[in-house]
């Protein structure tokens, strides 16, 4: 039995909705098969008003153990650091987060908002939002860079906008089954098993990438989305094409450029004019290279690839 509390700050509930799409295990399996005791969740909890406040106080006082504290959404600090623009159960949500993080065995940030600040922290960040232990790429965030939960781990970051349900359930199951020690985290505190390979790994458009055959417009069943349509698959860490979405597909397979939503900078270029769904280039060369590739290497590679490109690569080959 592991007690789990899930709260939302500056959130859209997208990670909750994603979580409810889970299978193997499903949200119900977590409760019935893995003994996860969901104390409260904003969308699923039974308790209203007064009873919830009693529960929260039992947790913060240590009267009831909090094994897993899941936070979705940003920590809202506006106005002027008070957090009054996001009040929950009678006080700023940030006050609850500070107290609950202290008593939690494990603290898990679900989704970009809770990890890096996400969309609400986009300039001018009107809600003065930040993630639990990061703001964009800067280590620290609301809890500070030295924060460790009672089990001795920093915040476990499960980014994505939203996070894939399997990324969420597998972390919860790992913790609940005593395998938290096997979790290895990268420099952004993301579980390495999910966030070491690239979004491009397993993409059905990889042959088009290799031959530099571009999808220059939307609505096509051929071509790579990297060269013109702003796809960030080659430099984004996620398993989106290894662990498919909704058991069916991925954005890049279906024809939508990857937005890089598991990385701290999302949304990239602060959505400034000219940056949405358009590859940013300098003299025809992408500003952001596939990870680890330098400019000279890129030019050599793509020149050769283009020259070697077979005729079929320009035809409709049902890559979706």
């Amino acid at each position: 039995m592991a007690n789990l509390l899930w709260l939302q700050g500056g959130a859209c509930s997208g990670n909750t909705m994603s979580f409810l799409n889970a299978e193997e295990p499903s949200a119900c399996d977590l409760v019935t098969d893995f003994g996860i005791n969901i104390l409260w969740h904003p969308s699923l909890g039974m308790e209203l008003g007064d009873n919830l406040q009693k529960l929260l106080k039992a947790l913060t006082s240590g009267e009831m153990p909090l094994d897993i504290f899941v936070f979705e959404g940003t920590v809202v600090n506006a106005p002027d650091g008070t957090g009054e623009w996001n009040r929950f159960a009678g006080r700023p949500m940030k006050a609850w987060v500070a107290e609950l993080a202290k008593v939690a065995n494990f603290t898990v940030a679900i989704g970009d908002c809770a990890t890096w600040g996400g969309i609400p922290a986009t300039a001018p960040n009107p809600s003065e939002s930040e993630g639990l232990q990061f703001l964009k790429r800067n280590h620290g965030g609301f809890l500070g860079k030295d924060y460790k939960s009672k089990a001795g781990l920093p915040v476990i970051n499960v980014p994505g906008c939203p996070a894939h349900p399997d990324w969420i359930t597998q972390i919860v199951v790992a913790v609940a089954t005593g395998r938290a020690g096997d979790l290895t985290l990268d420099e952004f505190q993301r579980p390495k098993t999910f966030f070491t390979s690239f979004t491009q790994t397993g993409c059905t458009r990889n042959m088009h990438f290799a031959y530099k055959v571009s999808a220059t417009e939307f609505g096509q069943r051929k071509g790579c989305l990297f060269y013109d349509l702003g796809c960030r698959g080659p430099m984004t860490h996620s398993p989106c094409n290894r662990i498919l979405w909704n058991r069916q597909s991925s954005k890049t397979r279906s024809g939508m450029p990857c937005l890089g939503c598991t990385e701290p900078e999302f949304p990239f270029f602060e959505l400034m004019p000219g940056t949405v769904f358009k590859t940013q280039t300098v003299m025809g060369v992408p500003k952001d290279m596939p990870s680890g590739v330098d400019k000279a290497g890129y030019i050599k590679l793509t020149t050769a690839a283009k020259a070697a490109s077979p005729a079929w690569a320009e035809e409709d080959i049902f890559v979706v």
Partner: protein
Amino acid sequence: MPSAVQTLDISPVGRVEGDLDVRVDIQDGVVVNAWTQAELFRGFEVILRDKDPQAGLVVTPRACGICGASHLTCAAWALDTAWATTVPRNAILARNLGQIVESLQSLPRHHYGLFMIDYTNKNYAKSKYYEEAVKRWAPFTGTNYEIGVTMSGRPVEIYALLGGQWPHSSYMVPGGVMCAPTLTDVTRAWGILEHFKRNWIESVWLGCTLERYEQIKSYDDFMAWLDERPEHANSDLGLYWRMSLDIGADKYGRGVGKYISWGYLPHEDKYQKPTIEGRNAALIMKSGVYDGHADTHKLMDQKFTREDVLHAWYDEPGGLHPFDRTTKPTRKNTVDMAGKYSWSTAVRHDEDGRLEAGPLSRQLVAGGKHGEAWQHYDPLVLDIYKKLGGASVMLRHFARMHEGLALYRQAEHALREFKLNDPWYIKPTEKDGRGWGATEAIRGALCHWIEVQGGKIKNYQIIAPTTWNVGPRSADGKRGPMEEALIGAPIADPHDPVEVGHVCRSYDSCLVCTVHAHDAKTGEELARFRTA
């Protein structure tokens, strides 16, 4: 002699997607006054200012994780009208299908995950249906809870075939869609729909075939259906109806009695050259305002939209049309019930005042004879509304579930009509201008206004269904729809006011679009039952 008025602050009322603070005044066990407070401000309109014209396609689906497809629909059509694009037939169908499957997902998810678990509340232990309700609908362990929550993930698998993932894709873009589905996608989508129908709609929800249910056109037909076979009475719909009557959910939650729908699902042959003015005549599901007091229908037009801020935390003039708003949040958001107390504006129709949004509104509009002769018409819910003497918690939720079955047919229509070798996208020319995009999210009227100037967003405004429903009092002091619907609710146990929850959840508020908790000054006092 009447007893003293007792004030009950409930913070938070969960399970409305984000949290809603409600203050109710109770006299003799009945709610006599109410205030609904949205307490989260994220400032999406502020973030979108000066950004790329297409930034709304990325940002607005993330305003709400439940209705992302609906936001995306609005964002795309708003740009289509601003840029005067041509949208190919296939793309209209692909947008509609995405919107529909998101709504189908929400039916069992909201019904089991959010709404029915209240029927297992111990306050209803005396109901003769209680034992059966607990067996089926108890959270996580109830037999049908588990089926419902698990099945709810299936329809959005179709969304993933179109947009790669649900939630939070941006596959709808001005000029069409990013995808180009293949025959395999279409056949797989059929398989998913059939699975959803066979394993939930027919076997669990209805206890009969969809075709049999579709024969129901009136209240009398419905009651006859209920008695026709034990499978009907014992279906989840049958039990919902019978238990709702038993616990009195038909007796409260009336609301303002006037209703709005923007209409939705543009017809694939009628909206390829989208304009703001041309939308009403192009919709499969017509728009409308239904006045339940006068029993009249008329079309809805965005130009009548006004937002009052006398009781909302914005420092700007009240009564503005969204194109004229500037979204200036009040720095110090102190709760003052006589003054400002919510982040939600009070939306109203310039002629008809406060309107309720949601599936009930859509169904009451669907029963009207206004609009085009070819548009969808369904008299059932309007007939029940009249026979039962108006709206209630029971009818509002029933309307939501009833509509889903018509949506199922529209999903089939989209799959039948895709022409796989025709275009999905026509590249538009970017330009400055004003646009408006609307739809009906599962929980009600949603629309976006955009003004593009100098190649960037000058103004972006969103009015969500919850803005209509949970808005505070308007400038003339009139209560918002949910505030009004709380009046008259009986509270059996003020320490567990499940009835307030029923009313709020019957609106399926998306408070994440505006939301959260509560009265800073009182701290611990907040959720306490106190006598004023």
